[in-house]
Structure formats: structure tokens, C-alpha cells
């Protein structure tokens, strides 16, 4: 099995068998239809995402587009953190840099390739990222890390802070995929995140903070907070 070219033989053999196999069985019954789409109103989407993610031990802070930096500072001042990993080249990063104060954990930019800064990435206590959106049905954030906001930002530090625009909370994953036409171009890595990392591998006892972040803090920017009674 060590001959050169063996691998491509495997491909041909497998595909030949598979083609013969599907030819034997042929086409079958028509398909069950798609599930009816979910339709929560805006306030319900925010409330549902908050409730479900809190149940998964995420900390949710509902704020707005003018108050979020203050809310973030408040969150940071309640903790002892050696630094906050951020993406200097994003609008979010620029806002943070402009508003930073000396008593806060220092901002550390993720500006080099991982090979040059792996030690710092694994040593820093917290990281802050934007999000692409959220999913109300299951309570999760959507992240599409990119060149400016790399993948390890939401993974290596023990505390992950995520900023979510309430307008971008979708009813469901299916809806997000369809409306934003994901199928036309998926990023290197797309993620759904529903809480801090967890495990139940020992006697099914749920414990948080195994390999990924121990804490997930979500700042929801909601400029149209729900009136107390539905209108």
C-alpha cells in the first residue's frame, strides 16, 4: 500500500463503487418540506437570546450604541485582568483606543501573525471582538473572524467579550444563512458561540471554562429598547 499513486486509485475505486451503488437503488420519494420559519418580533429576539445565553452562563449586558464603552469599562473594572486583546484596525478597535483610560487593563493589539505572538495570546486574560450577528432561536452569537479580528481572539483568552448589535439578531440560523447568502461565499472560519466553554464529561456534572474561555460577556447594543408592554 505504499506505491506512489495509490491514493488516486482509492479515489477511483471508491467512486466507482458508489456510482454502482446509487444506480442500484435509484431515486426515491419526494422530500419533506422545510420547517416553517420562526417569526419573533424584535424585542422577543433580544429577550430570547439574552435568556438562553444567560442560561448557558454567558453574562449579558444590554446597553446602546452611545453607552456601550462605559458599560464595558464598568465590566472591566469589576475584574482584575492583565490586559485586553483587541483589533486596532476595526471601527470597534478605534473607538476603544480613543476612549481608553489608564486604570483599565491595557489594550493589546493583535497585529502580528500568531507565530510571532503565540505566547502573549495564551497569556492575556481577556479579548474583545465584534460579532456578525446573533440567533434568537437557540441563543448564540455569529462570528466571522477575519484578517483584522483573528480566530484566537475569541478562544485563547480566559474572558471573551463580544459586542452584538441588536438589529442583527436573526430568528434562526437558517434565516441568517439565507438572508446573508452565506452559501455564496463562506469565510475561512465561521462560528456560532452560545456561552463560555463547558464540559460534562465527568459524571455529566456541568462545569464551565474547560479549554476555551471561562467567561463570555456579551454587550448587546439596543437602540430601540422594548417598551415595557407590547404596543
Amino acid at each position, binding site marked *: 500500500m505504499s506505491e506512489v499513486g495509490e491514493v488516486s486509485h482509492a479515489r477511483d475505486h471508491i467512486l466507482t*463503487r458508489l456510482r454502482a*451503488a*446509487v444506480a442500484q*437503488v435509484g431515486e426515491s420519494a419526494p422530500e419533506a418540506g422545510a420547517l416553517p420559519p420562526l417569526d419573533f418580533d424584535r424585542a422577543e429576539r433580544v429577550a430570547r437570546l439574552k435568556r438562553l445565553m444567560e442560561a448557558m452562563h454567558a453574562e449579558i449586558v444590554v446597553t446602546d450604541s452611545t453607552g456601550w464603552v462605559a458599560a464595558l469599562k464598568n465590566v472591566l473594572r469589576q475584574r482584575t485582568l492583565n490586559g485586553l486583546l483587541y483589533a486596532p484596525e476595526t471601527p470597534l478597535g478605534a473607538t476603544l483606543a480613543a476612549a481608553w483610560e489608564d486604570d483599565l487593563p491595557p489594550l493589546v493589539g493583535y497585529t502580528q501573525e500568531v507565530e510571532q505572538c503565540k505566547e502573549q495570546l495564551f497569556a492575556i486574560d481577556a479579548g474583545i471582538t465584534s460579532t456578525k450577528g446573533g440567533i434568537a432561536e437557540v441563543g448564540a452569537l455569529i462570528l466571522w473572524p477575519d484578517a483584522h479580528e483573528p480566530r484566537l481572539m475569541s*478562544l485563547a483568552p480566559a474572558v471573551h467579550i463580544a459586542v452584538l448589535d441588536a438589529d442583527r439578531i436573526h430568528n434562526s*440560523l437558517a434565516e441568517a444563512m439565507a438572508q446573508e447568502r452565506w452559501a455564496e461565499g*463562506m469565510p475561512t*472560519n465561521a462560528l456560532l458561540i452560545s456561552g463560555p466553554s463547558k464540559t460534562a464529561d465527568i459524571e*455529566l456534572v456541568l462545569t464551565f471554562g474547560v*479549554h476555551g474561555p471561562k467567561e463570555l460577556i456579551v454587550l448587546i447594543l439596543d437602540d430601540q429598547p422594548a417598551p415595557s408592554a407590547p404596543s
Partner: protein
Amino acid sequence: MASTTVVDFPSNFIKALGNPQLRRNLRAAMDTLGLRRRTLFADPAFFAQLRARGDAIRQRSLRKLPQLLEQLERKCTENGIQVHWAETTTEASQICLDLIQRHNATRVIKGKSMVSEEMHLNHVLEEHGIEALETDLGEYIIQLDHETPSHIIVPAIHKNRDQIAHLFHEKIPDTPYTEVVEELNAIARKVLREKFFAGEVGVSGANFAVAETGTLCLVENEGNGRMCTTAPPVHIVVMGLEKVVERLEDVPPLLRLLTGSATGQLITTYFNMITSPRKPGEKDGPREVHLVLLDNGRSKILADPQLRETLKCIRCGACLNHCPVYTRLGGHAYGYVYPGPIGSILTPQIEGLDHAGAMASASSLCGACEEVCPVKIPITHILRRLRNESYNKVDSPNAVKGHGYKSNLAESLTWKGWAMSNAAPWANALNAKMLAMLGSQLTKLTKVELVKNWSQGRTLPRFAPKSLHVLAKEKGIPHE
């Protein structure tokens, strides 16, 4: 398991049944998982709809399997993921080994993957001086103890916290003894974080692969899967070739079914979708991503309209959690990588009935597995088929490997006798009368070896004085 091994089921079973600790650990865990699943799918109408959708998606994927795999290969290649095909587990392991050696890597970090267990990849790598470290907490625990997973979702569920406490204390240097789950968790976190940092190649499985976009999807809670697929410079995905789905929109219903059926979760902590290696300008992620597609008998299974249903499986483990046999024996007694109902239908087809056919008998055909299976696999029908083919040589290219291995004279005589007794009322009546006469005498039979063994853990049955045939006739039911 090499195909030359024949597992000694009776002694495995007796051993497992004689371990009350194992049974307690398992029972509690399986009941909890079952309850969580029921709570999540509390609305039967919604569940029925979702399940019909999942079933249809998996059926369509299998109907189009060769073209979808080609499309997946094309898309992955366009995106920069290198695709490899393996007919056997040996070939698949060899591909991984070559890739790892090409990078002179000796430290491999692994996310949980049942296909890598099927390949016995760790063993192959270790033979070549490569450390293959399991990083899922459950997998890490059993690897420390040189064990294999006993469950496809919660691999260390047969162990309780004091067993794990002892294990950590003995095997991890400078580790104090603790039975506090959070502390055990923290110990593992510390050890493994260093490993994530130093890992040279990451190996993982995949739950789905999307042909339309060339996307590989991983479902997990711990973050170790993300670590293995993000931190090292090279990532190898090993996947059974049946895992492909046609479109991205096929993913949400399957994801919902998978997490709900497995652990009663609406969604896991992470759903990780990987479509390419690191692109120019990006600062992290592996520079190379490889996808190894494993056949290992799956293409043969696909040819048979009934057996192919086996390949719809999304490995949620619900059939294990609800199986009265699994919940009493645990996974190790089955002797093969995939235990429980799914293992009992899949393994004999891959390994051959002559090696693993006995697995098909590890079922009472109660149908609990079928009731919960999120993609409606007719597990009991397939079990019966495997049992039949164990006894009968079948003249068909789709016959299960090793068919007819039980067709010796004594067995076939018994079966003929049984068939006759059911076909001929007089023979049945005779049997029934004999049984009724025996009934009162049965306790004496416990001296007979076979009955003695059987009755050790059971109460002997009392046969009814009148058979069902007789009762039915008396009630005036003409044909039962």
C-alpha cells in the same frame, strides 16, 4: 479492532453485568441524558417535523453521494483544502502519518473523532514515535487509563469521579488527589493548555461536510476542537465519507437534531465551520488543511436499499442512551469502537458477520432506539436482517460480509423445527403441551448446565397452562 479478532461476547457480558459500579454510573447518566432529550423535544409535532426533515436530508445526501463527494472535493480544493481518499482504515492512517512526518511533527493534538478511533490512529502514530494527545476531557481521561471510549458522545461515562481522581493523582505529575469535579477540570485545563500551545498538527473529525461550499462543520462544547483546528500550523480532518450533505441550508435542521438528541442542548457552546486554511493577510489558523475521506466498507453498505439507512446516522448517541442492553453493559462489552444499537448494525456490516455478527444479538428488539433516532434509521429491521443473514447464506452481491457463518447443521435443524412448528398448528400444539407439562417441573431443570447459567441472574418463567394459540381459538379469533 483488526478484522481477525472475534470478540468473546458471553464473557464480556458476564463481566460487565457483574460490575455494579459500572451499572450505577451508567444508569444515572443515561437516564439524565434521556430526560434532557425529552425535555428539549417536548413538542411531538415539532419533533416529528424536524425529524422528517433530517431523515429526508440524509436520504438525499446518500442518493447523491458520489456526485456530492466530487463536488465537495472540487470546492475544498478551490478553497485550498487538500482532499485525500482512503479505502481502508490502514490507508487513512497512512495518509495521516505521511502528512505528519512530512512536517517532522511529533506532537499531535486531537479533537474527539470516532472515525479516528475506527482507524486506531493513535496507536499507529505512537508506533512511529508521535505523541497523539486526546484533548476532549472525556477522551483525555480514558487515554490516561489506556482505555477506549465507552460511549460515542460521553466517552468516559463509565468512570465516576473517584476513579478519575485516582487516575489524575497517579498519572499526572504533582497532582493532589481531589474528587471535586471543578478541580479535576482545572487540572486537565492546565495540562492541555500547554499542549495546545505546543501542538504541531491538529487532528479532528467532522460532523457534516457541505458539498455546496466545501465547508467542514464541527460541533463541540469544550473549545478543544477549536484549539486543535486553529492553533497548530496543520489541521487534518478525518471523516467517514457518508457525512457529506448537499447544501448549507441542510445544516441547521441536522445541527438542531444532533445537539438535541445527543445531550438535550438547543445548541452546543461552539459550532465551528471551516472552509479554508489561513488566507494571505490572516493572522492565525492552520496554513494547511487536509480532509481524509474514509470508505472502510461504507460504499458497499450504500448499495443495499435497506442497509444503506445505516449511513444516515449522525452519531448522536441517543440510541445508546435509550438502549436497555447498552445501559446495563456499557460500551466496552461490545468489544468494538461503535457500541450500542448503532454499533450493532454498523460494525457487523464493516467487519463481517463472522467477526462481529454476535453484536446483532445484543438487542431485545424493543425498538427504543428507533423511537428516538433523529433520522429514523430502522435499527430493529436491520438487526433482524443481520441475524437472518448470520444463519443463511444469501445469493446477492449485497449480502452482508460473512453471511451464513452460523449455518451449521444443529442450528439449521433447530430453525427448521421452529419454522415447522409455526407453520403446522399440530406441531405447535404439541410443543405448547410439552411446555405446559414442563412448566411445573422447570425448577428441576436448573441442574442442566444451560438452564443453570441462564437462571443465575433471573427468575425462571412459568409457562402458561394454555398457549396463546389455544386462548385465541377459545376467544374465537380465527387467524392470529
